[in-house]
């Protein structure tokens, strides 16, 4: 181990922090939360503009702020937070020094400069090209340049993570065995991140050169194929990262052990092999791309990444159920779940994230990613409905849940207003789930995404969407207010806790320990009739039934539209 003065041990959790790594974790997390705040406020404005009765913003501001909303939350908030997670899962969990802190600083600086540069370009008003910036529509050069710098910075962060794994291995900081499951999940996220961020840089660099005049043509279809290897695949970084966070929270709240390391790790391995495919999801109805490629790509080879997600969907709650049953909550099917700490935002946020991601985000994602079903969904409001369930209800809520736990550990401060923290995951989860459902409902009625006025004011022709669509957009607007209130409460609590929270006294232990004592290995003597986790199995079967029904209902809808071939 390196100079021991550079380390501190957390008195509550026993975790060993390398100080340079800790500083970088804090900075990345703070930058992340700044962008969450910006993106969240903009999200509220989006919800209020698409609510036809309110119709808050004029068209030009709507499109400008929609561009800023997408990039702020979908790219900047999430990737900054993920870099913090990468440093935590490598340096802290492996008890190792961080590789090349100076490079990590450079990466952070590039990410800050890049993200600010892109935001400035957007707010100057001449880069309202949406997050996707499809050519031949063009933004200002510094819009692309900022994204390229951000991508380079994030790539440096990924390599610092990999370097730390190498150092930890060489210096035997975590013994002779394998890396922890949570770190393995983060490694999965890192591998996908390198592929996807590199794809983004590969297409944005020539686009930047095109804008400044060194390249005369960017093929719009080529742009779409490569851009979506970032646009969609980057969301798979989130999936891997937030599932790693689910396992971490099951570990710290319950002392839960995975049902078996082998199955959970195999599921992450399937992600590494197949999850970063799926760049076809937004180009399923594009001309000039063959059905064979679309089918292979959209299904992650053969739904092997979906298989992996379904495995995690069983093993994460299964691990919690087994731990709870071993602690004595072994009655009936669901005593383990009823007696779970629902008032602890770390657990409540994580479990709601699991439910929203699985039932709302996961099922709809697979259904709309079916080559032919995409014909009745592409570019409707169903698409953002789906990804608000995955990225906001799934990833963001999981990261919020982890943050409630991280503030006392990392910053050594108590969370202020803990009474309100109890409600935050429910407020945010309910708002997000409503927002997703109502947007998807409007999408099935044909309401387009990225559209300022579905009443088509000043158009040559007219079209009247069904009244239900207007009702659903109103409900989506109300849900956006709830979600924004939940998100605002989170940012307020975390920021005030970090700066003004009561300093934690190492001598005084809280009522609930920050990290639970592990339960014993093995599953003997728990469960019902030889099934160790019957409650989880029932939940999983309910999930599968909903999945199958919803899948075939959509084939039925498709079969009723015009013949196409």
């Amino acid at each position: 181990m390196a100079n021991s003065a550079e380390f501190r041990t957390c008195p509550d959790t026993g975790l060993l922090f390398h100080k340079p790594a800790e500083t970088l974790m804090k900075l990345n997390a703070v930058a992340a939360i700044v962008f969450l705040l910006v993106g969240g406020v903009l999200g509220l404005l989006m919800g209020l503009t698409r609510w036809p009765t309110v119709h808050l913003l004029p068209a030009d501001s709507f499109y400008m702020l929609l561009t800023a909303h997408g990039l702020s939350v979908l790219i900047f908030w999430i990737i900054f937070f993920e870099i913090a997670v990468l440093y935590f899962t490598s340096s802290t969990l492996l008890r190792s020094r961080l590789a090349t802190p100076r490079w990590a600083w450079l990466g952070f600086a590039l990410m800050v400069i890049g993200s600010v540069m892109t935001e400035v370009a957007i707010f100057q008003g001449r880069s309202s090209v949406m997050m996707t910036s499809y050519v031949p529509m063009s933004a200002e050069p510094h819009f692309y340049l900022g994204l390229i710098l951000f991508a380079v910075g994030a790539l440096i962060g990924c390599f610092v993570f990999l370097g730390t794994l190498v150092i930890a291995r060489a210096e035997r900081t975590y013994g002779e065995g394998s890396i922890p499951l949570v770190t393995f999940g983060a490694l999965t996220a890192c591998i996908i991140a390198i592929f996807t961020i590199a794809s983004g840089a590969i297409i944005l660099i020539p686009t930047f050169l095109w804008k400044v005049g060194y390249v005369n043509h960017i093929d719009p279809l080529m742009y779409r194929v490569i851009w979506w290897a970032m646009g969609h695949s980057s969301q798979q970084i989130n999936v891997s990262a937030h599932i790693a966070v689910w396992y971490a929270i099951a570990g710290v709240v319950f002392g839960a052990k995975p049902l078996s390391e082998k199955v959970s790790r195999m599921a992450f391995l399937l992600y590494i092999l197949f999850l970063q495919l799926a760049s076809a999801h937004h180009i399923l109805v594009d001309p000039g791309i063959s059905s064979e490629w679309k089918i292979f790509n959209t299904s992650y080879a053969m739904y092997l990444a979906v298989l992996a997600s379904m495995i995690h969907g069983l093993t994460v709650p299964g691990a919690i159920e087994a731990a709870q049953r071993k602690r004595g909550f072994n009655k009936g099917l669901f005593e383990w779940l009823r007696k779970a700490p629902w008032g602890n935002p770390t657990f409540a946020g994580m479990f709601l994230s699991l439910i929203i991601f699985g039932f709302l985000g996961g099922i709809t994602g697979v259904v709309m990613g079916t080559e032919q079903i995409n014909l009745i969904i592409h570019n409707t409001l169903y698409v953002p409905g789906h990804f608000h369930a995955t990225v906001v209800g799934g990833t963001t809520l999981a990261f919020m849940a982890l943050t409630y736990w991280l503030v006392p550990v990392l910053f050594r401060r108590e969370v202020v207003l803990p009474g309100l923290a109890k409600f935050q995951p429910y407020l945010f989860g309910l708002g997000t789930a409503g927002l997703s459902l109502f947007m998807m409902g409007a999408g099935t009625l044909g309401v387009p995404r990225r559209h300022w006025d579905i009443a088509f004011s000043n158009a040559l022709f007219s079209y009247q969407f069904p009244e239900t669509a207007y009702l659903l957009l109103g409900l989506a607007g109300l849900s956006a207010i709830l979600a924004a209130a939940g998100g605002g409460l989170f940012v307020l609590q975390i920021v005030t806790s970090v700066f003004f929270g009561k300093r934690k006294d190492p001598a005084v232990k809280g009522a609930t320990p920050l990290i639970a004592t592990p339960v014993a290995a093995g599953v003997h003597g728990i469960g019902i009739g030889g099934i160790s986790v019957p409650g989880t199995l029932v939940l999983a079967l309910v999930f599968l039934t909903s999945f199958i029904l919803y899948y075939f209902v959509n084939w039925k809808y498709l079969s009723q539209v015009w013949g196409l071939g």
Partner: protein
Amino acid sequence: MSRLAPPPERLWWKEATEGVEIFWVAIALVWAIVMFIMMPYWHVYGKQNLSNEAYRTTPEVYGKKVQAMVDQYTVRKVTARDVPVVAPPAGSDVYLLARLWEWYPVLELEKGQTYRLHLSSMDWQHGFSLQPENINMQVIPGYEMVLKITPNKTGEYSIVCNEYCGIGHHTMLGKIYVK
């Protein structure tokens, strides 16, 4: 040591797997295969598929093809801007173009007949979204997509643009009439 630590059993891959996990992996795998097979199955037996027919083109070449059809088959003109309504014969090639911010021309088709619909853009990317059917396709400049369409109901259909194409995006509305 907490559960965030490395696996307590170093040879974790030799540990027994839970029966419930094996059961779940098996049914999830079967479901994955069913979903995978559905897509090729629908290509053979389903009636709603995207064609794989597409060509590279240019706005000039495509614009001429559209205009040739308009000149030959226009039956009347609508709106203050005299937009042509074109009724091409059943089974023929029908050309529709997207540009800032209109779909040109208006088409008049017959129920139960099949047409070869061509789609391309003259400028930026656009989204063909047929309402209230809710059939959606991407329209890309430089590419001409061809697919057979068979309207199965009569009525007035609207084409909404559902790919953001600038400040007039929300005014981009076209029509297809099915008799």
